[in-house]
């Protein structure tokens, strides 16, 4: 109950600030929190990245192993994305099987990587119809201060960028870097009344789960989209959100070029 009252107070604060066109942390409405990306921090993993988006922290690890391809695409590697919202990351997370939030998180991140064809899966075929490389993208939330989706998507692509295919370990030739050829970036916004806040914090989310994630690729194509939360979105907002998200994604993508 205490938590709920606190959220109500925060909500009033967020809304009153917003009436003056301001955010509680002083950011511009379309300003993303500071981003830090650290790669290769888990040596046991084939690739890894820790992303700090403000106080939100997500660790993504990539593991790879040979496996069977899908029958309809016998010559392509397989991507499997999973998200675990461990109780360490937030007082509201509980241990147990993945709930709809973590499933949605994993699927939205997965869609961006898959649909932008970020990984060249045709180069991950060992033996057509028999053996291909499987990429396991595991998203591990460490601290949820809002907008886990964007932090996870950024950590996922950063981790893929420094992934080495462990061919030697499986006696399948020499190790080689994972062929990554696109840079999908997810941008999530919180829709509040006639405004929207890019990259919302947890306190800002006290106004309600009214989110939309728009993922775009290096050529400014939209590759994934998800409206999430119980609210209605006007067409006008939808158009604005697309334009802003693509533009913001371009900014964030610059950071990936240094990896």
């Amino acid at each position, binding site marked *: 109950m205490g938590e709920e009252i606190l959220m109500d107070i925060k909500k009033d604060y967020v809304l009153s600030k917003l009436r003056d066109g301001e955010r509680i942390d002083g950011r511009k409405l379309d300003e993303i929190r500071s981003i830090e990306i650290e790669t290769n921090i888990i040596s046991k993993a084939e690739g890894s990245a820790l992303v700090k988006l403000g106080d939100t922290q997500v660790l993504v690890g990539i593991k790879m192993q040979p496996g069977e391809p899908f029958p309809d695409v016998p010559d*392509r590697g397989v991507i499997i994305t999973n998200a675990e919202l461990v109780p360490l990351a937030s007082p509201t997370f509980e241990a147990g099987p*993945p709930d709809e939030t973590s499933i949605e998180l994993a699927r939205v991140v997965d869609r961006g990587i898959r649909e932008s064809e970020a990984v060249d899966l045709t180069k991950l075929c060992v033996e057509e119809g028999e053996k291909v490389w499987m990429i396991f993208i595991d998203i591990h939330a460490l601290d949820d201060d809002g907008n886990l989706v964007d932090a996870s998507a950024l950590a996922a692509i950063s981790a893929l960028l420094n992934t080495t295919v462990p061919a030697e370990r499986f006696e399948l030739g020499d190790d080689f870097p994972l062929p990554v050829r696109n840079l999908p970036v997810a941008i999530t916004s919180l829709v509040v009344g006639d405004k929207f806040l890019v990259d919302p914090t947890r306190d800002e989310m006290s106004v309600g789960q009214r989110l939309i994630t728009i993922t775009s690729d290096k050529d400014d194509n*939209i590759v994934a989209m998800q409206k999430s939360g119980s609210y209605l979105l006007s067409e006008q907002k939808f158009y604005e959100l697309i334009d802003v998200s693509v533009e913001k994604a371009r900014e964030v993508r610059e950071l990936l070029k240094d990896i």
Partner: protein
Amino acid sequence: MKGDEFEVDKPEEEKLRKDEIQLIIDGKRLDGRDFNELRPIKIEAGVLKRADGSCYLEMGRNKVVAAVYGPREVHPRHLQEPSKAVIRYRYNMAPFSVEERKRPGPDRRSVEISKVSREAYEPVIMKELFPRSGIDIFVEVLQADAGTRTACLNAATVALVDAGIPMRGLITSVAVAKVDGVLVLDPMKEEDNYGEADVPFAFVIRNGKIESIALVQMDGKMTVEEMKKALEMAKEGAMKIYNLQREAIMKKYEAIEIEEE
């Protein structure tokens, strides 16, 4: 947490994008439709006896049935909300509804579809009129041929009206796909499988006008301009479906009047 975490998101999403599959021939789609043409739709309200409201709907080769129960007591009790009704939406596919038998029960895809569909209805259903109660929406896909989530939403709307649940508007849903570089309305299986993008929309329609977007998802690749055009296309298609939903509801009530005389 066993098994499920390694469950593979099925190849349904694994688009082939094979160049040899031509989806647009001489300006027509494989099933002869124009780009902005819907598949044939059949809607019937009140098809189930036990449910408070129900609807059978066909959209092309999709066959779905929706049932609404409630407002009724919520079980388990701790899910009750003191000031409003709890909405639950369960999207489920019959094992025989697809080419290769689907393992029964919820997979990750159905969990996600159920979530976004529920979220589309939550702001539309007048929940505050039914504190401590629950409104359950169950949709079953009997035969799937792309666009099942849109077909289910369309059926659920009619079932909700049939159950007499007060709503601020009607939800109508349709998808737009990009195939062979052009946008097409209401994609069927082939277009969904081999197309370049798929964007399901759901709208709130009130007093015969589209008021807002209740659901939008997207996967594939589209330019910003195409996305904007896709929305316009979806809106036109949705208005046509909306009229069919209304007809189905009217027909049900006409039938009731005759019985009473």
